[in-house]
């Protein structure tokens, strides 16, 4: 499937290992301009490792093969020099506890992020606009814990959006938040992504969430992408055993009627 003129991010045969253990094995996928792609897999499938590789982090898993195209520029995962993440990719961690320094005031954290992106710590009108669009009026001199988690998560999103990314990566956007806040945050993201034509990469263990938002999904297990394709097609007829398992466990009701004892005991 080569849609070169549209593909924004393209990863080809990425492999990574920790010590001698191969944790990512020959991953290939792509994200088109303005598209929402989900990476679905259980715990230990290598989802977070994949994200770390995309962000240019080489520890603990070190990529040893594969390359990445982003917005026309190519990066080789194995080369030691080009570790910095490509410009235009932003990352929202799954949980504000991971995203903020609890001992620094929010406006300080915002200024630091702005300084990295724009080179000056000043507070510009466009930044105010961004905050307004997220429903956050002023940062004040608050510490993270003085804000609700939903507001913290939205501010994290704001920090990610500061650099006007073309690809936004969300790591488990719902698992740490309750459903009201998660829905609110996702709604904000979707609106923004739609307006600005930003591509989204959602990493989740919840296929129901992927089914709801993603046009294409990749199913990962044990360090491999076993299926990659349109979400609707994937839901209708999964090709692999793991894909079938995931799809059959999408709804709570199915799990009850099946009650698969064997797979539970061997899990």
């Amino acid at each position, binding site marked *: 499937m080569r849609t070169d003129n549209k593909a924004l991010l393209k990863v080809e045969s990425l492999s990574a290992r920790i010590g001698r253990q191969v944790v990512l094995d020959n991953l290939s996928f792509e994200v088109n301009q303005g598209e929402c792609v989900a990476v679905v897999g259980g715990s230990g499938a290598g989802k977070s490792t994949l994200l770390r590789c995309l962000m240019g982090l080489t520890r603990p898993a070190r990529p040893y093969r594969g390359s990445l195209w982003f917005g026309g520029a190519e990066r080789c995962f194995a080369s030691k020099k080009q570790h910095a993440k490509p410009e235009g990719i932003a990352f929202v961690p799954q949980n504000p506890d991971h995203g903020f320094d609890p001992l620094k005031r929010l406006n300080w954290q915002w200024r630091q992020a702005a300084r990295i992106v724009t080179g000056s710590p000043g507070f510009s009108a466009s930044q105010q606009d961004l905050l307004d669009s997220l429903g956050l009026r002023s940062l004040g001199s608050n510490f993270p814990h003085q804000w609700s988690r939903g507001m913290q998560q939205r501010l994290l999103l704001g920090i990610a959006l500061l650099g006007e990314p073309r690809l936004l990566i969300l790591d488990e956007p719902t698992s740490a938040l309750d*459903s*009201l806040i*998660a*829905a609110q945050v996702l709604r904000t993201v979707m609106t923004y992504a739609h307006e600005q034509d930003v591509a989204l990469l959602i990493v989740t263990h919840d296929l129901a969430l992927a089914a709801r938002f993603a046009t294409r999904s990749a199913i990962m297990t044990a360090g491999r992408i076993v299926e990659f394709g349109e979400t609707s097609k994937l839901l209708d007829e999964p090709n692999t055993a793991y894909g079938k398992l995931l799809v059959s466990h*999408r*709804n*709570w009701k199915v799990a*009850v009627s099946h009650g698969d004892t064997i*797979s*539970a005991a061997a899990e």
Partner: protein
Amino acid sequence: MLRVKNLRVRIHGKAILDAISFCVQQGQTLCITGESGSGKSSLLRALNGLLPAEFERLAFHPKTSEPSELKGRWQGAPGLPGSRWVMQDPIAALNPKLPLGVSIGESVFSKSLSATELNDAVSEAMSDVELLPGLAVRRPSEVSLGQAQRACLARALVARPELIFFDEPLSALDAIVQKQVAATMRRIQMRYGTTFIIVTHDLGFAATYADHVLVLRNGKVEANQSAGNFFKSPESRYCEELLLAATELGGLPEVVPATQGPEVARSC
């Protein structure tokens, strides 16, 4: 079997739970839900005597052990007699130095059993939760999260409690394992007629497993309805928003009202 009337918890003079009343029938599942910070976990802690609580009345009538009636102030860990608790994070809940089998067996502190009887009880509990017997000698760090949570469930089950409290029992697990563990919970409930009180923010889970739903908001009861009614016609505007948010996230497949919630809830 458990009836709570006007429970109130105050910390430093501030009421964090106020005027909470509900009751649970034998063998049924009560799901307590609400946004973070609404007092769900505090309610569990209060019911287990870990927070100083005031009751107008608390009546607990298990079939096998003595009924207890409480009034006024109460702070009495280890909680209601004959009840057990399954925590959110299995790794934090299990002693990292103890093999799972020993952790499970420790829960039988109230009875005097011989070593063989204890072993039998442990292996029976482990087979109830579909853990392979070989795992009894492993430590929590040597098993998967799902298996660790099953061990916690076995630990709660080994003393044959009539009431088990769950604090977000599934949120640490990934989607497939969640559903498998939930199915195990259901089988246990059907086999032993255990009463479950489950704190969860997953409304999809509640729609499938709950008989009764209690929604908390800012320490007050927002809705107290049977699951069928709750998913069909929620009591308040806020509950509608909750349901809407869950649907938006794909957590509640299709439009739940009328089609799914009721008949599933009643089939238990």
